[in-house]
């Protein structure tokens, strides 16, 4: 009969889990542990005025000096930018831009004159900047073979499918394959200082030390087995839009030739935004108190190889000094000052609100 299966259980809530007096059946009561009865010791924070208001004031008081520091640092960074695309007919590179052809044997050279009003101290970094160039387009970003760039011999002759259509040139595989490598920036920029006698002094530009150390020494490696790079790359073709093959990027320096050429490495690090700048050369600081770039007239000699007008892009050259926070960017400083002020003001407002309405919480009139 069903009723005989009824158990005589202790129902008193405070009785701990002892088995029933009959001893016939197991006690099905859950354990009276803190975990199973949801009584674990816990920290129960609530938002009180004593915690929120000081937090707002402290944040406000910390942010404003940080913001001022950032803004002053950014203002002390010297930066000079010049667009040399050659869009308007009175710009020096207009002819080079207009008459650009892919099959040119004679490179087009144009010269841009500019003046630095202030001397640049310490190391000066020369960047090239591109605008409206979508290095972050999905098909473009995927179009590379990291194994080939790491020196893998099998990938050298059989690159990844992602590199299509820049994978093979006829029957021969391209090294380095892919659209990113194919669109390597190949303008040459040379800087001259024009002194008071109108004589041109070339500013020494250092081309090593511009790529990330991890890139140069780990990620990018030349194919192994042959220190003669011409032989190492013999079964490959150069990318379609390159003038020279990869082992001729810098024949004078074997540590900067082939895949480990630093200009190539810098270009292969795809930018995240359509307007970007990439490090081109470094101008080392001079010993003593001479400024690295004294103020005065300068001449920039450009070998115009890189066409950007077809997609309405722009090219520019930037000279910049560096600080502990990087390049010139007033945004962080202004943002910190703004947020700090708003925080402080909000703290004051909350203090007023708390002062006027605080009695509501402390009153015991919880409606029943």
């Amino acid at each position, binding site marked *: 009969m069903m009723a005989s299966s009824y158990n005589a*259980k202790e129902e008193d809530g405070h*009785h701990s889990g002892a088995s029933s007096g009959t001893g016939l059946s197991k006690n099905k009561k859950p354990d009276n542990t803190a975990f199973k009865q949801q009584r674990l010791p816990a920290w129960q924070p609530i938002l009180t005025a004593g915690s929120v208001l000081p937090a707002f004031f402290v944040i406000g008081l910390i942010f404003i000096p940080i913001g001022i520091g950032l803004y002053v640092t950014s203002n002390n960074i010297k930066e000079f930018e010049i667009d040399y695309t050659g869009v308007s007919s009175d710009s020096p590179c207009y002819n080079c831009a207009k008459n650009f052809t892919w099959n040119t044997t004679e490179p087009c050279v144009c010269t841009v004159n500019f003046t630095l009003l202030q001397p640049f101290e310490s190391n000066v970094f020369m960047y090239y900047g591109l605008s409206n160039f979508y*290095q972050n387009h999905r098909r473009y970003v995927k179009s590379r073979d990291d194994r080939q760039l790491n020196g893998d011999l099998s990938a050298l002759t059989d690159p990844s499918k992602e590199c299509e259509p820049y994978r093979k040139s006829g029957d021969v595989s391209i090294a380095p394959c892919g659209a990113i490598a194919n669109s390597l920036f190949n303008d040459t920029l040379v800087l001259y200082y024009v002194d008071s006698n109108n004589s041109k002094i070339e500013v020494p530009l250092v081309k090593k030390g511009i790529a990330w150390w991890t890139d140069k020494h780990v990620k990018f490696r030349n194919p192994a087995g042959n220190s003669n790079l011409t032989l190492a790359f013999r079964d490959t073709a150069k990318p379609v839009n390159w003038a020279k093959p990869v082992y001729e990027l810098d024949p004078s320096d074997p540590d900067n030739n082939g895949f480990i050429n630093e200009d190539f490495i810098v270009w292969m*690090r795809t930018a995240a935004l359509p307007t970007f700048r990439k*490090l081109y050369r470094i101008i080392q600081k001079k010993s003593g108190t001479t400024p690295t770039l004294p103020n005065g007239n300068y001449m920039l000699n450009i070998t115009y190889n890189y066409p950007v007008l077809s997609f309405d892009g722009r090219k520019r050259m930037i000279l910049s000094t560096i600080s502990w926070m990087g390049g010139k960017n007033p945004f*962080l400083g202004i943002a910190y000052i703004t947020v700090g002020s708003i925080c402080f003001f909000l703290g004051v407002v909350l203090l007023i609100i708390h002062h006027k309405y605080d009695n509501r919480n402390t009153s015991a009139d919880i409606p029943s």
Partner: protein
Amino acid sequence: MIKVAHIGVGISGQEGMQAVLSSDFSFAQFRYLQRLLLVHGRWSYIRMCKFLGYFFYKNFTFTLVQFWYAFFCGFSAQTVYEDWFITFYNMVYTALPVLGMCLFDQDVNDRWSLYHPQLYAPGQKNQYFNKKAFVSYLIHGCYCSLIIFFIPWASMNDAVRNDGKDIVSHPSFAFLLQTCLLIVVHTQLSLDTYYWTAVNHFFVWLSTIGYFAISVTMYSNGMFYVFPSSFPLFGAARNTLNQPNVWLTIFLTFLLCILPVVAFRFIFIQLRPTINDKVRYKMRTEELTAPAPRRLLRRRSTRSGYAFSHSQGYGDLVTSRKFLIKRPLKMTALFTQTDSSIFQNQPQHYRTIAEEPQSP
């Protein structure tokens, strides 16, 4: 009634197990219904609503950042995060903390829940997760995604490292956004969790530190040597995280997302405190002492009222009193106790009706 009710509760007892087998919840005494509703039901409702709201919020934030990036990548569906982060985000980095909140969260403990049954009202009125709440989570996610994308975007515009080298490469930008996003969603969860047990602490800190550990491992030399094509973001972690402007950007993003939430909640607590807020505040300032446990002899009812509609049932068996323990009958008055026995967690007493024993 069965069609309209939200849950069905069965009482197991002398009438058998039929109700137990066909109900959602079952227990042995009517008085447990109070605990079921006011304590466990209420906690369950709050946990579910918090869980749902937080899940929607974190996924809105995560996805809308990709949406804003589309305007800057030529609408080419390039992901702003790295692929492995997208895989791990919901499975590893944010799974455990939400689980912890959903299992352990309590706004007030059980004794206070029983003492103030009015706390049950928000569940009945569907206040914590309705269309308005959903839209507010959506707007909150949208706002946070705007901050998480545009503050790093503005800060990294034409930015470089402090040794002049590149920092706005796609891997570094992705890593910065990922870090901002994770810190913001973990802090939002911390604000939502009202009951911090050791398990909650463990899950949240494990997830945050685990993110950094996993990222650094994935972007390290070892993984790159083994799978160069799968881990292309090699070097991003160590070259990004040693830059002060990256950390300053992360800090600014985190505060801009969290401070409005704190300010709003504080203002609402001050201007329009709900019953919940008042009880939590009271719980902090007063201690509700538990009454001393009193063991009272349980009085079992000697009769039960029941009916089977389809068959005669066991009526004769029950009323024959064959298996009842004979106790001395006591005359009990109605309403012997003046204070609430529910509060003291004692069994309630019912008036017993003595019947003439029937001959079987």
